[in-house]
């Protein structure tokens, strides 16, 4: 059977936020919408998991603390720009 060709991903000029990794997307999202603060941004798994758990609870998603498919889909959904937490 024909093998599906590997999709080529292109950088489109003028577009912001191109080709972020899932982790980069998550970190940027958690910070933008008030789930983590600059001080907490660090590489340890704990801080990311803490932020994810907060988000999952706030958005009524399954609370796994993991960057799972459901959470990633939620982060890619069109939404309002007002932060979910904080002032």
């Amino acid at each position, binding site marked *: 059977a024909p093998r599906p060709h590997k*999709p*080529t*991903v*292109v950088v*489109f*000029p*003028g*577009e*912001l*936020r191109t*080709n972020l990794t899932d982790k980069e997307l998550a970190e940027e999202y958690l910070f933008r*919408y008030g789930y983590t603060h600059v001080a907490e941004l660090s590489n340890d798994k704990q801080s990311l998991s803490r932020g994810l758990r907060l988000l999952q*609870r*706030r*958005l*009524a998603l399954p609370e796994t603390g993991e960057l799972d498919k459901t959470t990633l889909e*939620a982060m*890619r*959904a*069109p*939404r*309002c*720009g*007002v932060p*979910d937490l904080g*002032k």
Partner: protein
Amino acid sequence: FQTFEGDLKWHHRDITYWIQNYSEDLPRDVIDDAFARAFAVWSAVTPLTFTRVYGPEADILIQFGVREHGDGYPFDGKNGLLAHAFPPGPGIQGDAHFDDEELWTLGKGVVVPTHFGNADGAPCHFPFTFEGRSYSACTTDGRSDDTPWCSTTADYDTDRRFGFCPSEKLYTQDGNGDGKPCVFPFTFEGRSYSTCTTDGRSDGYRWCSTTANYDQDKLFGFCPTRVDSAVTGGNSAGEPCVFPFIFLGKQYSTCTREGRGDGHLWCATTSNFDRDKKWGFCPDQGYSLFLVAAHEFGHALGLDHSSVPEALMYPMYSFTEGPPLHEDDVKGIQHLYGPRPEPQPQPPTAQPTAPPTVCATGPPTTRPSERPTAGPTGPPAAGPTGPPTAGPSEAPTVPVDPAEDICKVNIFDAIAEIRNYLHFFKEGKYWRFSKGKGRRVQGPFLITDTWPALPRKLDSAFEDQLTKKTFFFSGRQVWVYTGTSVVGPRRLDKLGLGPEVTQVTGALPQGGGKVLLFSRQRFWSFDVKTQTVDPRSAGSVEQTYPGVPLNTHDIFQYQEKAYFCQDRFYWRVNSRNEVNQVDEVGYVTFDILQCP
């Protein structure tokens, strides 16, 4: 539900809003209507009222912007972040901003109003079938004059309903070319152009010359946006796709998802993306401006995001055609403002005197080719076969609740002298006022009780003394009542007013069957008998009525004097000795209605 820290809320009930600018994705009247309905979602369950004003003093300022738009919270291009708003308070607080790199629709694809044709301005229906083929954009197929058209029903082959799509071949907007269509080719800085261009501008708006030589004549206009085929986002928003185009050496003759990880369809706006790198996203369902606005206005009233996925205040967008408010939203907003007061029962009051009526069983008065048809805003007009309406029925003359007290209305939709009464129209209701009767105000009455065919929101009205015909204007539609008999809605085109006239803001009868019709800063002489304007009679308010503001939203004549209204004020113009002179400025409610 969540509110903002400290229960931030408005401490007055009559909230005002100002639509500061517009997206080009939707006709302006559709944008106005979407915002009005979004506010109505909240006024239906609270004591709050929302009134549109035309200046920065408004509580809620509504703005479309892209990327960094002045508040330090930049938008992020297409999709992702759609809009944001600030909690109640002074200054930027309470304002709502919308990302203009999104495609704003009513949630079900682009809204393309049509011109001419036989569909009375109804919007395009996408997809539609023509000669067995399906179209999801306007097309020039089947025409030799290359003018884009569309069907206004799903099947042109059977229904034969069509209209022409916005096109620079039909008209231009603003500029100084008087709305005339583009002339191609035209010469600009010695170069020949056979399409619209953004050359020579830094704001990216597409324009053309309305004569063959711009260098010589300096006459131009802006090209209508072809939302059905223009791309959004990317780096050439507003441009049409070019098919076929080359991408990574391969040829594409439709929009594609190739090269993207997010699944969005895109196209190139030149024939070779590999060389020119010009692109944008193809039209899709877009985002419902009504739903996103209702959500943002929830923030502007003091609600924070909810954790209930079905709630309007949940942060993620999802399209619904049902009522947008969830129980959680209602609890939240009533926590801040309380419920909407129920109207108090009132004792019956005396019947107001009825205007003369025409026998309702007479034949239809319209010519067959002018039979009233369903306009985009409403069902077929009741016409003479409807029940006779002997004036307002049962409406009390004592206000039902404070919100209906005429003295609480800041700005009226329209004001007109009809049957020697000054009528004040507002949101589906009207009051009658006569100086002669000791300045007594009667009403409110329901507009539809007296004039069943009329929409809720009017722009202006006038009565012709000779024929006793009363003309009502709303958007690009006009209704003519003779007693209870009505002709309309008809489009302003039938009166000879071109598509660039988006509304009639006022009328000044001149006697002898002539009336000046106003649209913002311009006016034309209208012949009541032929019901057409004289295109050569166009005049400028600024030149003819010096001293009145240029952005008046209502103009009417009362006891031989002209009144120009802006916000809560009026400028009265006296035309003695052929010289127009402002002889009084005052408040509509205090100085005309003598409100306390």
